[in-house]
């Protein structure tokens, strides 16, 4: 049944896309669009209710994404939206295919160098400061309000300064990522370290456990759900930070560099190809963190079956 539905939807969109590329329009065409979209929504709904593991779990988001892409193609071409506002997915894909080596170079520059190093340092620093603050109430009361201040620094403000300090290459972008990922980690870890139950704290106290032992054996495990929340929020954030930072000076490579320079030249297909790379990389990064979370917090009610 689901298979048949998927077949109909796929066929429907294929026909629509062929029609629109041939330049047709009209009432019948738009009714076809509406009907196929409704069928696709039903399909996504069915797939979403399927069992949890394996291929079916992937089918739903894929079907949803494919629907969005097909609609995008049909609408952009059908309504003849100018390319400088929104290019069609087919145009983006064609351009991405041609520009693949360049996209890879940009990805390596921005993601592999700036994002990863900045993410590790930023999350690490937020985490470390949270530990210190948890240990020293004096620091907690003094540092956390100041931590809030750092969080509030807008990227567009710090990026020019950090470029000035750390130079044009990826180091300054990593510094921006550090500044952006730091605060979510700090806030969440502090909240997480406070989440251990009173009874469990008493238990550790009764063992005269050292603060380090209490931290390691009790507080950190119970803080994990919070820490992973921060890691997840930070994954796409780090990517945005690095890209935006490249707007303020960069070598002649990088995703942010390409996006701004090509946008100014109205090469929106290349801009979108770059955005797609960013979205895929960000989602994959997030997905990895989410997998790690499932493994590490198997005991939490939100994960436990």
């Amino acid at each position, binding site marked *: 049944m689901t298979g048949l539905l998927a077949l109909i939807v796929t066929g429907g969109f294929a026909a629509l896309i062929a029609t629109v590329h041939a330049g047709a329009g009209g009432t019948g065409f738009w009714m076809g669009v509406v009907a196929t979209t409704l069928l696709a929504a039903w399909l996504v709904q069915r797939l979403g209710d399927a069992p949890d593991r394996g291929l079916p779990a992937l089918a739903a988001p894929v079907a949803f994404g494919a629907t969005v892409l097909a609609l995008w193609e049909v609408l952009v071409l059908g309504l003849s939206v*100018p*390319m*400088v*506002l929104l290019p069609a997915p087919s145009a983006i894909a064609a351009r991405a295919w041609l*520009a693949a080596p*360049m996209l890879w170079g940009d990805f390596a520059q921005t993601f592999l160098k700036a994002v990863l190093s900045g993410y590790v340092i930023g999350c690490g620093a937020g985490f470390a400061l949270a530990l210190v603050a948890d240990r020293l109430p004096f620091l907690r009361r003094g540092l956390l309000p100041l931590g809030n201040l750092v969080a509030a620094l807008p990227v567009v403000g710090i990026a*020019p300064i950090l*470029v*000035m300090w750390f*130079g*044009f290459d990826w180091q300054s972008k990593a510094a921006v990522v550090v500044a952006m990922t730091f605060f979510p980690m700090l806030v969440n870890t502090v909240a997480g370290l406070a989440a251990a139950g009173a009874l469990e704290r008493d238990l550790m106290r009764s063992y005269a456990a050292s603060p380090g032992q209490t931290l390691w054996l009790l507080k950190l495990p119970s803080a994990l759900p919070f820490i992973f929340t921060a890691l997840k929020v930070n994954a796409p954030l780090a990517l945005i930070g690095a890209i935006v930072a*490249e*707007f*303020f*000076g*960069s*070598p*002649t490579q990088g995703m942010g*560099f390409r996006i*701004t*320079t*090509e*946008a*100014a*030249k*109205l*090469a*929106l297909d*290349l801009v979108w190809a770059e955005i797609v790379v960013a979205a895929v990389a960000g989602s994959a990064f997030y997905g990895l963190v989410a997998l790690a979370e499932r493994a590490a917090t198997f005991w939490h009610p939100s994960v436990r079956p």
Partner: protein
Amino acid sequence: QERVTLQLKWVTQAQFAGYYVAQARGMYRAANLDVRINAGGPDIAPPQVMAGGRADVVVEWMPAALASRERGVPLVNIAQPFKQSGLMLTCRAETGIRTPADLRGRTLGVWFSGNEYPFLAWMARLNLPTNGTPQGVRVLRQGFNVDPLLQRQADCVSTMTYNEYWQVIDGGFRPDQLTVFRYADQGVATLEDGLYVLENRLADPAFVARMGRFVRASMQGWDWARQNPDAAAAIVLDNDTSGAQTEAHQRRMMAEIAKLLDTSGGGRLDPADYERTVQTLLSSGGESPVITRAPTGAWTHAVVDAAR
């Protein structure tokens, strides 16, 4: 009164004094126009604004305008108040750079977003690769200011005669401590601030007539600004909603802008300048060229003629 929306290419400053003067001193009103001036900024691409239907006429540099034409937003130059290019490369003299040949092996700050093509054309002519090899030059994408020069991250940076150059001076350099290469002197100048509209709208005679009045009033504004630079700077300052501009800086900018203007022809584009711009852009190479073939119909004198 007929409405006209003008989209500038950059933030409110004396670079656009003529339009603000025409508005403040009633030249638009006298031409029976109600003109709304929208400031630009680093994230605003005037052709995109145009394609979104949010402007009737835009101020743009010709490389970007030609690029957008090739990408399906057919902009047409209707007037060219700026005759000269103000773009230059400014170097610290202490690095030993005296002539273009000395640029080999140096780190240069360049503006991108379409402004890199005259630069690439120049480097191609000098036979200097731009890929960072020691035989060539190392290129940095420069932000909006000259900090890389002051902080010695670059040996040279891009500047405009009317703006960034003076920031370098304010940063503690004397003119004799700087080596300056004007793009115009190197034969790679491209046309800067011109007025552009969408091609299909020119089919409408009423629109052409309206633009004619607009161009004429704008040129009157420019003419007045050229003759009264300090007063023009004050008018610009009145229109700065960010409250960040200073009077001294705007006066200096206005004085420099005046040197780039040509108000004598009523804004009529010189086809020779256009040809030189196209040739420069086509000879620049690069991995994603700004234009791949010589455009056609990218300018018209119809509006300027209608303005007579």
